[in-house]
């Protein structure tokens, strides 16, 4: 126990192993801090926006490679959404929200694996902080995504089934059991925000810690399977975020069938 803790303390002090739970601030814009994770998120945003603009301007009947790949991806996503929603028009309506969340989280997670992220530092000596850090390892970013997802679920629900129907899901005065179930539904809505946030944050941050420690222990060859694991986990977490958003939208926008029939 003593040797292990001494080793970790020494390495932390020497700046070889600087793992912080909170993303470090690089500079401020106005009064608002910009952390290294937020910086990489901005870069990912710019890359995605540029890709989108290029795709739009170069749309052709005979597709080039970029258009081909994008068409395969979007067709695949629409097919998957069809199998959940059952209707192509509904899939096209919810595609912007679900696919954007998926693509943004995917590119964020994968961009955190690029060499240079986490190793290029600013500042001297003891307070050298990494310039870039995996975007989802900042709790604020995952919280923002979770809030967007849950808010949009409710916006879609209100726009499709109406405000009264949506509120009656949570405040159901038909019977005492209905009241209890409604309360549970309300609590589970907030629990969804928490679980979205911490699922993505926990997976990405744990992956970062794992990679840092593996690279520290055996720098050659051994980190490779862990990098593959991180590529896989990044994809899975993006997929799960998108799918769960889709499923919650689907659940929230189906109107209640007759409650009287056989309850």
């Amino acid at each position, binding site marked *: *126990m*003593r040797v*292990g*803790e001494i080793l970790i*303390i020494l390495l932390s002090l020497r700046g070889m192993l600087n*793992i*912080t*739970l909170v993303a470090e601030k690089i500079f401020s814009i106005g009064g608002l801090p910009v952390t290294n994770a937020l910086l990489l998120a901005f870069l990912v945003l710019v890359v995605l926006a540029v890709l989108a603009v290029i795709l739009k301007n170069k749309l052709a009947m005979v597709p080039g490679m970029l258009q081909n790949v994008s068409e395969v991806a979007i067709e695949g996503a629409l097919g998957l959404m069809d*199998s*959940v929603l059952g209707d192509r028009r509904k899939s096209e309506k919810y595609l912007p929200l679900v696919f954007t969340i998926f693509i943004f989280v995917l590119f964020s997670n994968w961009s955190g694996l690029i060499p240079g992220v986490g190793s290029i530092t600013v500042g001297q000596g003891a307070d050298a902080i990494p310039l870039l850090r995996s975007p989802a390892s900042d709790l604020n970013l995952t919280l923002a995504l979770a809030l967007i997802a849950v808010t949009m679920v409710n916006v879609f629900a209100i726009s499709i089934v109406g405000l009264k129907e949506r509120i009656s899901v949570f405040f159901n005065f038909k019977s005492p059991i209905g009241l209890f179930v409604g309360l549970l539904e309300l609590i589970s809505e907030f629990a969804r925000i928490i*679980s979205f946030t*911490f*699922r993505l*944050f*926990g*997976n990405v*941050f*744990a992956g970062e810690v794992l990679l840092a420690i593996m690279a520290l222990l055996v720098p050659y060859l051994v980190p490779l399977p862990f990098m593959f694991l991180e590529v896989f986990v990044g994809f899975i977490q993006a997929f*799960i975020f998108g*799918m*769960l958003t889709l*499923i919650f939208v689907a659940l929230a926008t189906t109107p209640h069938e007759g409650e009287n029939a056989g309850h």
Partner: protein
Amino acid sequence: MFTDISMRLLATAFVMGVGTLGPGLAIGFIGAKSVEAIGRNPEASSKVQTMAILAIAFAEAVAIYALVIALIIKFVA
């Protein structure tokens, strides 16, 4: 013998060890039952798959809660 740092390391390891038992078992059960359901009725495969992914994500989230507590113990106060 029990310094602050050593207790912290011990607590972190204990949280992760005990906290991932339940979710691990849960995910195993979900996988087994959903594969069995698909084997019985291949036509309902996509419905079963959707439910299975949803249930596995929820079960994994509980393990992530344990991970968050472990991280807080280790890195914050």
